[in-house]
C-alpha cells in the first residue's frame, strides 16, 4: 500500500536530478528493490507508471532490479541466501541475522535527454 508514496518520492528525486542537469526528458529510471525492503515490485511499477503521467518521466521505462537478501556468517566469512537458508549458515549452521544486502530501496540512475 505504501508503494504509491515511495513511487512519488522516487519520481520527485528523479525529476529533481534531471532538472538540475538541464535534461528535457527522462527516458529510464533504474531502481533497486531488496527482497526484504517491504516493497512489492509490481505495485511500485504500477504506481510509478501512473504517477509519471504528465511529468518529464511520462514516457520513461521503469527498470526495477530485485536484490536477493543475503546474510553473512562472520565465522565462515561467507554470504548466503538469507531467505532460502532461514538465516542459518550452510557451512556451520550458526544463525546469522546480519544482512549484507536485501533491504535496498534505491534510485540507482536516471537516463535522460
Amino acid at each position, binding site marked *: *500500500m505504501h508503494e504509491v508514496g515511495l513511487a512519488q*518520492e522516487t519520481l520527485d528525486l528523479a525529476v529533481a536530478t534531471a532538472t538540475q542537469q538541464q535534461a528535457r526528458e527522462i527516458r529510464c529510471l533504474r531502481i533497486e528493490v531488496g527482497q*526484504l525492503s*517491504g516493497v512489492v515490485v509490481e505495485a511500485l511499477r504500477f504506481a510509478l507508471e501512473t504517477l509519471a503521467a504528465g511529468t518529464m518521466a511520462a514516457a520513461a521505462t521503469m527498470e526495477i532490479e530485485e536484490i536477493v537478501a543475503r546474510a553473512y556468517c562472520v565465522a565462515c566469512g561467507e554470504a548466503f541466501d538469507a531467505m532460502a537458508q532461514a538465516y542459518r549458515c550452510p557451512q556451520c549452521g550458526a544463525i546469522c541475522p546480519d544482512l549484507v544486502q536485501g533491504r535496498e*530501496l*534505491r*534510485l540507482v540512475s536516471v537516463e535522460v535527454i
Partner: protein
Amino acid sequence: MCDECGCGLTTVHGHTHAHAHDHTHAHHGGTTPHTHDDERVIEVRQSILSRNDRLAERNRGMFMAHGITAVNLMSSPGTGKTAWLERTLQESLDGRVAVVTGDLATENDAARLQAVGVKAVQVTTGTTCHLDAHMLHHALEQLPLAELDWLFIENVGNLVCPASFDLGEQLRVVMLSVTEGEDKPLKYPVIFQVADAVLITKVDLAEAVEFDWERAHAAIRQVAPRAHIIECSAKTGAGYDEWRHWLDHSGGTTSVSS
C-alpha cells in the same frame, strides 16, 4: 535489435554515454531521420527513503536530547496494542510517558489512553497505511518532551508497511496474538526481522484456540533470531513484569519507575 527505435540493427547507440553528443541515424536511409541529442545517464545512488531517514534522524536527535526512550509498537489490527499500552501505563511509568497513536481514522485510541491518564496524541493518517518520520515529528510538537522519559508509538495496524519507515525510535516491538496463527512471522518476515522484541499477546486465549507454542517460537526464531520473545496478556497481566524488565534493560536511557 536497436534499443532506441526498434529498427532491427544491432548497432548500439550511445545512450549510456556520460557526455553530450549529437548524431543522426544514417541507417534508416534517410526515411525517418531523427537525432539522439545529449542522451546520458545520471548516477543517483540515493535511497528512496532518504527524506524519511533524514527526518527520522532528527526525531532520534530530539529523543536523545531529552533523554527519551521511544518504542515503536507494530502489529496487525486487533492484536491488542492499545490494550497492552493501557496495561503498561496503568501499572507504572510514573507519568513521564506519552503515546503517539496512528490510525487511518478516529481518535478512539488516543481517547482510551487519555482515560488512563496519559498524554496521548492521535495521528489520523487518512489513507496512509503507516506512520512516517514526518508525521511523528509533527505529533512530537504537541508533546512536552522535557517532561518525558518514555514515548510509545502505536503504529497503524499493519504488518507490511510500517517496517519500511524508520521513525527515529530506539526500540521496535512487533506483536502477534495467539488468535492470528503461529506462522505469521514466516508470512510477514520483513516486519519481524526488524523487531527487538516480539510479544505474543492474548495468551489467556491460547488454550481455546489450541495455540502451538513450539511452532510459534520456531517461526519467530527463524526470521528474528535476536528478538526477545515475551508471552503476555493485557487481560490477566501475564508477561508484564518481563516486559518492564526488558524495557529497563534494552538500551533505554532511563529506567521505568513504578
